[in-house]
C-alpha cells in the first residue's frame, strides 16, 4: 500500500500544482498552457478536480456493487464490510464532486443549481446511497443487514445506470454530451482539450483513483482491527 500512497501523492501534487499554475491562453498550440475556452476562462482549472472526483465516486460505487454481489454469492462478511466502505468513500467523493460542480456552475451558468440532467442524476445518486446508509443503520442483525443492503445496492445501482447514462443523453442540458450537443455523447465533447489538459486530466484521474484505493485500505484495516477488539472483549 506504500507504493499506492506514494503514487497518489505524486500524481495529485503534480496535477494540482500544474492545474493552478499554468497560464490560460487563447492559442491551443502552446504545450505548457491551458487553452482559453469561451465562457469558461480561468474557471477551467476546476475541471481537474471536478471530473476526477466524479470519476472516483463512480469507481467507488462500482466496487461497492461488486462487493455486494460477492457477499450475496459467498456470504462472507468481509465483502459486506468492503461494500460498505466503498459506498462511504463513493458518497464522500460524490459530495465533493457536487460541491465543486456547484461552484463551477455558479461562475459559468449563473446559479449553484440549474436542474441540469447530470446535476439531477448526481443528486439522485446521493439519495440512493443516503437510503443505503439509512437501511444499514435501521437493521441490528449483522447478517440480515448485509444481505438486504447488498440487494438494495445492486438493485438501485442498476437503476442509477439509467440516470447516469440514459437520461442525460435524451434530455437537453447544460453539461457537454447532453442531448442536442453537436459533439455527441462524449462527456467532455466540445471542450477542445489540448495535450496539456489531457495529460493533466489523466494525471488527476490516476491520482484521485489511487487516493481512493489508499483510503479504502486504511478504512478496511481500521474496521478489521475494531472488529477484532470487539471479538476479544466479547470473550
Amino acid at each position, binding site marked *: 500500500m506504500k507504493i499506492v500512497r506514494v503514487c497518489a501523492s505524486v500524481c495529485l501534487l503534480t496535477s494540482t500544482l500544474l492545474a493552478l499554475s499554468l497560464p490560460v491562453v487563447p492559442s491551443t498550440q502552446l504545450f505548457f498552457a491551458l487553452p482559453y475556452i469561451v465562457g469558461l476562462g480561468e474557471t477551467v482549472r476546476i475541471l481537474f478536480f471536478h471530473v476526477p472526483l466524479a470519476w472516483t465516486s463512480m469507481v467507488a460505487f462500482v466496487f461497492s456493487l461488486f462487493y455486494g454481489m460477492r457477499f450475496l454469492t459467498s456470504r462472507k462478511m468481509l465483502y459486506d464490510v468492503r461494500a460498505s466502505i466503498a459506498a462511504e468513500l463513493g458518497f464522500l467523493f460524490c459530495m465533493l464532486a457536487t460541491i465543486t460542480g456547484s461552484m463551477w456552475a455558479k461562475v459559468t451558468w449563473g446559479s449553484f443549481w440549474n436542474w441540469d440532467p447530470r446535476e439531477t442524476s448526481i443528486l439522485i445518486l446521493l439519495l440512493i446511497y443516503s437510503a443505503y446508509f*439509512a437501511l444499514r443503520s*435501521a437493521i441490528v442483525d449483522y447478517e440480515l443487514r448485509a444481505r438486504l443492503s447488498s440487494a438494495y445496492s*445492486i*438493485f438501485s445501482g*442498476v437503476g442509477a*445506470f*439509467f440516470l447516469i447514462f440514459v437520461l442525460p443523453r435524451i434530455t437537453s442540458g447544460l453539461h457537454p454530451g447532453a442531448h442536442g450537443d453537436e459533439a455527441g455523447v462524449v462527456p467532455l465533447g466540445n471542450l477542445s482539450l489540448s495535450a496539456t489538459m489531457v495529460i493533466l486530466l489523466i494525471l488527476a484521474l490516476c491520482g484521485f483513483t489511487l487516493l481512493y484505493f489508499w483510503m479504502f485500505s486504511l478504512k478496511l484495516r481500521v474496521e478489521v482491527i475494531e472488529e477484532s477488539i470487539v471479538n476479544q472483549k466479547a470473550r
Partner: protein
Amino acid sequence: MLGVIKQIAYIVLKDVWSEYRTKYAFNVLLLFTLVSVLMTVLVMGKFSTNKEILAGLFWIIIFFSSMGGLSRSFVSEFEKGTHLTLRLIAHPLSIYIGKLCVNVLLLFVVSIFIILLYIVFFPMIGFPSLFAVLLLLVTGNAGIAVTTTFLAALLAKTEARESLYTVLAVPPLLPVYLTVVQATIKLVLGESLHNIANELWIVVGYIITMCGVSILLFDKLWND
C-alpha cells in the same frame, strides 16, 4: 414453464380473492386518491388549471397511493405466517411475478380512478388519444410496480419498514417518474403517441432491466 405460469395465475387469483374478501388495501388506496385529488382542488384553487402541474401531481398521487398499499403484499404473508406455505408450494420466480402482476393491476385500477376524478374536477384536461393514455398508464404503473414489489420483499422482514419504504423507493423510482411525467406533460399539451415513443421505450427498458435484476435477487431474499 407451464407449471410456473400456473403458479403465477394461482398467486394472482389468491391475492385478488383475499383482497376481495378484506378490501383493506383497495379501499385505503381509493380513499387516499380521492382525498389527494380533493386536497389538490381545494388547496391549489385557481392554480389547479395548470396542465403541467396536474400531470406531475397525477404521478405523485400514484406514488403515495402505492406506498400505502403495496408494502402489504409480502408483509401480510409474513404477518399471517402464510409465507412458509407459499415457499413450499411455489417457485420464487412465480411468487415475484405473481405479486408483481397483482401490484400492477392494483395500480392500474387506482390510476383509472384518478383519471375519472381528473375528468370530473379538471375538465380542461383533454387527452388526444385514449390508446396513448392507456399505454402510458400500463408502462408507468409496471415501472413503479417492478421497483415497489422488490422493495416490499426486501423490507418485509425488517422492523422499521413503513418509514424505510418511501426513503428506499424514491431514488430507484426517479428514472421512471422523470420519464413518465415528461410523457404525460406532452400528452396533456396535445402531442401524439409518436412524440412520447422515446419515453415509453426508456420505461420499457427500465422494466425489463429491473425485472431481471429483481428476479435474480428475489431468490436470495425469499429463501433465507
